[in-house]
């Protein structure tokens, strides 16, 4: 094994094997906590040994192991450079400069930008500058879909040694200056990053997950800093950033300057059994104008019945998607490639799917599965491209639930705020 693979990492190593020279060993269990994830849930092995269940999904850490690391030396063969030369709008530019300034002043920051504000591009100058200075940069998201969507954009914008890390991928780990991956992958890092960017901080499974929050803090060097991104911050998140002395940046406007699409509420209680006339007309309209659309449903069990209703009236191709669907990533790629006109999906696709001219229908919008944040995210899929800034967000519910009203209100406020600057 190459020593580089230990740089800023936590590598599980059997106690029975000799450690490579130059590595630092840490215990796999300390005061009842897992040395990798800090969890306390354990299962026993034969004899007195045990292993951690909280991080088992990324491989077993047992009392038969120790954890090895080599302090991050920032020893890259070449230093990355940016060759992105896209244009930022004046408002994006302003935020982008603030990000750089705050980072150089050594504070953590939270960027609250509406869906479709162009968060990623605003970060490019900060990333580019950090790479040039020989810093190690991590860019993570709780959602693998988001990571996969991000990878080609990052690859196109920088020439840098880059690793994309997520659970299902097979390639072995290699040391790189830029690391892209799911938040879970941070469990395998130890004081590695000078700059760590977390996209979608408010998304499951990161949101409120103590172990992952701990992993984030530990993967950043003590001299490094965090940039958190969100379109839908919870009150708790805003409070926490303030409490820890972080700074808040806000961009209430989409990059093309047009308003966020508002949510149209259509009251109809019986959508599971049959579609209302108005809903049918809407879908037939999408079909006629060849507009791609996603129908969100609250539960997996709604997928097939709703899909049947749609196939009965819409001749174009479509399919269903849910979190444990093994073909999920492929189906989304196929949708993007135009092989499907529509998807019937659970909330799993509330983020990460960006498609020009996409329209959104939310069935059972008053179901508790759909939080205010989820509704904002789903609505945020619509009208993102410069060529199609408008579109429909059609919510079907048995009544005007508190969550729906809150989401509608937040969209109106953000739109007003965007108009004011």
């Amino acid at each position, binding site marked *: 094994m190459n020593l580089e693979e230990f740089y800023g990492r936590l590598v599980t190593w059997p106690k029975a094997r000799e450690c490579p020279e130059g590595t630092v060993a840490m215990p796999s269990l300390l005061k009842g906590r897992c040395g990798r994830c800090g969890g306390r849930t354990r299962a026993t092995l034969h004899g007195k040994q045990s292993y951690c269940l909280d991080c088992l999904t990324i491989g077993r850490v047992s009392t*038969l192991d120790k954890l090895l690391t080599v302090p991050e030396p920032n020893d890259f063969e070449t230093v990355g450079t940016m060759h992105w030369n896209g244009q930022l709008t004046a408002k994006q530019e302003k935020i982008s400069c603030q990000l750089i300034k705050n980072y150089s002043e050594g504070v953590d920051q939270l960027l609250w930008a509406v869906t479709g504000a162009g968060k990623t591009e605003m970060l490019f100058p900060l990333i580019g500058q950090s790479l040039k200075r020989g810093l190690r940069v991590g860019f993570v998201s709780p959602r693998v879909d988001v990571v996969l969507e991000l990878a080609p954009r990052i690859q196109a914008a920088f020439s840098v040694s880059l690793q994309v890390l997520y659970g299902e991928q097979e390639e072995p780990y290699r040391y790189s200056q830029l690391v892209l991956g799911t938040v879970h992958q941070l469990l395998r890092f130890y004081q590695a990053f000078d700059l760590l960017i977390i996209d979608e901080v408010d998304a499951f499974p990161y949101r409120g997950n103590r172990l992952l929050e701990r992993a984030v803090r530990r993967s950043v060097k003590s001299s490094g800093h965090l940039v958190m991104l969100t379109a839908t911050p919870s009150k708790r998140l805003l409070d926490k950033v303030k409490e820890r002395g972080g700074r808040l940046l806000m961009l209430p406007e989409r990059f093309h300057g047009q308003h966020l699409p508002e949510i149209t509420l259509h009251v109809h209680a019986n959508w599971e059994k049959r579609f209302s006339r108005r809903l049918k007309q809407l879908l037939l309209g999408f079909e006629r104008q060849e507009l791609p659309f996603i129908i969100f449903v609250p539960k997996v069990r709604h997928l097939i019945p709703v899909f049947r209703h749609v196939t009965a009236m819409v001749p174009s191709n479509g399919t269903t998607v849910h979190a444990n669907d093994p073909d999920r990533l492929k189906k989304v790629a196929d949708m993007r490639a135009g092989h499907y006109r529509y998807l019937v999906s659970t909330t799993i696709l509330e983020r990460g799917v960006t498609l020009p001219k996409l329209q959104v229908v939310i069935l059972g919008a008053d179901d508790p599965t759909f939080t205010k944040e989820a509704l904002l995210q789903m609505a945020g899929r619509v009208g993102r491209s410069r060529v199609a800034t408008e579109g429909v967000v059609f919510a079907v519910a048995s009544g005007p639930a508190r969550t729906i009203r809150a989401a509608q209100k937040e969209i109106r406020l953000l739109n007003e705020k965007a108009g004011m600057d």
Partner: protein
Amino acid sequence: MEQCLLCQQSLTSELTLLTLLTGYRGAQEQFCQTCLQKFQEITGPICPGCGRMSGDARLCQDCQTWQDKGETLIENRALYVYNQQMKDYMARYKFIGDYRLRVLFKGGMRKHICRRVRAEKIDMVTSIPISSQRLQTRGFNQVHVFIPISKGFLEPLTVSDNHKVDQSSKTRVDRLQTTQPFEFKEGMEPRIRGRRILLVDDVYTTGRTLYHASARLKSAGAAAVFSITLAR
């Protein structure tokens, strides 16, 4: 909430009265129906040599080859087909090392072994050994839990570290050409003479490992050697 140990989906099934009273959870209650249904039991006619399913109950090509080489067939019997689900199970149980998964086939294997012990008048049950280094890193021998201790369990064989290279990292040809990897533990050889032995392993793939173990045991005078595996 309880989750399926294989797919992490929440288990919706209600706990049985036994569980509520004793806190003991049976294997079935820790796995979801979807996962359980993907395992395929071996039923109907089988190859008498290796125990794989076969329409006509005749000796399969692989077993024919063993016989042509002069081996006495080991008459392997397996409980399940080595399908994708079983491969995934093995990956989690053996390679990741999630020891909780042992409960899934414990009862089934024990029952199967007891039945075979009676039918073939077995007086010694043993497992294919794993190397001491493997044992130290994995923390368990994956088949020990399947063996009822009361049935004359003895582990006379050992395997050295450099011999038992991970089977899955070898090609089929490599595996077939491996030379005898097993040795007797100190003082064990004299205890083999005249015994009727049942070998237990997790998966029958090429049969190479089992035939090696069998040859070693027979060289010490074993009267007969049979085998049982979880999957074929």
